[in-house]
């Protein structure tokens, strides 16, 4: 068994002068304290990557900086799926008895540490160097392509997509750490600047500075434990050109594997933390995971299904779209918020019963998927 025993999250947005290591350290300190541990009790470290500070052995660099000497440490790279992939690995390491307390940590000064162009360019590298990059694509363009086809297939409109941006902003409004907290309307999203059709500025997550961390342990720390019940992956393609099937991107595949492990189904889910790099990402993942029927996710948003007091509250911290996106730490914020909700510590954002949660992350262009079921135990 493994439990998420402590969580730490910085605010996202501008952290002028803070380095990748600074942001990682701040989040790590919070998570370790939250788990009730001393830093020398951490015997495993998994970290993500930083586009601002690329390094061939970032976990060791961090451990040295942070002042710990773990018996197991390395970095993990699966794009946006990295946070959940690290959590899955931490679960495996802890279950195997390799470490007792694995610190999963990431941070990046992605906003203030480089120019906007450099950030966009670094990320566009997920495209094929010979067959895609010469055409001048951007990450929003890859997702714009996916969106155009998905909307065509299922009759989803731009106004439908806008609903997800509005919902994430409404949730962020109640989190003091969120990068964007001013409420927006569907009309605001529709009137925002075109980026890569059909996606407009407010359909896209921002670039942020921030850090996130958690501790995965063999035993639970507090009275209420958050247990990892099952997790699994699927990797169906890397490039948007080679997506085998726009109806089954890999999310359903990884979910099915996680379900088989956990003996839980989507019908059991009372809270969802789903990757939302763009509004289309959220729509497609919710529908492929079965949290909504094909083409019906936006209607469920309008009905309040994914609101804080709805049947399946979704990304109550505001998600990547409004809490912000600092790279690997971006999707880790979904897990931090989920842990707070499951342990009843979400304050004014608390949902009524987050007994079972489903988390899902994707990296690349819906290329790499990780699904995870969490269970509250008392």
């Amino acid at each position, binding site marked *: 068994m493994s439990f998420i025993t402590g969580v730490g999250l910085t605010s996202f947005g501008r952290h002028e002068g803070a380095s990748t290591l600074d942001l990682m350290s701040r989040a790590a300190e919070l998570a370790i304290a939250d788990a009730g541990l001393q830093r020398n009790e951490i015997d495993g470290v998994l970290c993500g990557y930083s586009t601002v500070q690329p390094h061939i052995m970032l976990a060791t660099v961090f451990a040295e900086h942070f002042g710990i000497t773990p018996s197991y440490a390395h970095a993990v790279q699966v794009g946006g799926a990295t946070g959940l992939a690290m959590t899955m690995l931490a679960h495996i390491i802890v279950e195997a008895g390799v470490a007792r307390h694995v610190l999963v940590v990431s941070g990046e000064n992605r906003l203030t540490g480089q120019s906007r162009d450099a950030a966009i*360019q670094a990320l566009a590298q997920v495209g094929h160097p010979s*067959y895609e990059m*010469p055409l001048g694509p951007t990450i929003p363009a890859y997702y714009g392509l996916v969106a155009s086809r998905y909307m065509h297939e299922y009759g989803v409109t731009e106004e439908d997509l806008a609903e997800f941006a509005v919902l994430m902003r409404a949730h962020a409004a109640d989190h003091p750490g969120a990068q964007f907290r001013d409420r927006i309307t569907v009309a605001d999203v529709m009137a925002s600047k075109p980026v890569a059709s059909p996606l407009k500025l407010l359909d896209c997550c921002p670039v942020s500075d921030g850090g996130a961390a958690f501790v995965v342990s063999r035993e639970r720390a507090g009275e209420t434990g958050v247990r990892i019940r099952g997790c699994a992956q699927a990797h169906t393609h890397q490039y948007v050109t080679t997506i085998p099937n726009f109806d089954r991107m890999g999310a359903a595949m990884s979910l099915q594997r996680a379900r088989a492990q956990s003996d839980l189904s989507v019908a059991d889910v009372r809270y969802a933390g789903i990757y939302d790099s763009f509004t289309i990402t959220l729509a497609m993942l919710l529908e492929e995971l079965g949290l909504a029927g094909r083409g019906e996710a936006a209607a469920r948003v309008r009905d309040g299904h994914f609101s804080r007091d709805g049947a399946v509250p979704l990304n109550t911290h505001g998600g990547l779209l409004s809490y912000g996106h600092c790279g690997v730490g971006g999707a880790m914020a979904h897990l931090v918020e989920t842990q707070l909700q499951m342990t009843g510590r979400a304050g004014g954002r608390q949902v009524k019963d987050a007994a079972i949660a489903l988390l899902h992350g994707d990296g690349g262009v819906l290329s790499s998927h990780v699904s995870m079921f969490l269970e509250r135990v008392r």
Partner: protein
Amino acid sequence: MSGAPRIDDWTIGAETIVYQSCAACGATQYFRRSFCAACGAADVHDKRASGEGVVYATSVVARAATAEARAHVPYNIVLIDAAEGFRMMAHGDGDLEIGDRVTAGFRRFTDRLVPYFTRTTS
């Protein structure tokens, strides 16, 4: 197969779209490799594509990542299902719609030659 003649394509400046066909399993692939990604056989052959296809997806880029690309904004990035059975990324007319039958030409984009699709006229 090693030693099979390589046909120059647009990625190295020739006005041609090239794909590969596997003699062992019959699969086609667009990204050039020395083997078939479907079955692993080394018996893959370069073939010249007709340039005919159907629009699968489109995205008009308004915000480019580089100064060079910014000079071309807005430009339409398209995914094309080629008549020969592979999918490719290219540029195309701004008003192309999913399902349109299209034909390839070539245009300059930054310092490169890129495939550019327009609606098939005949």
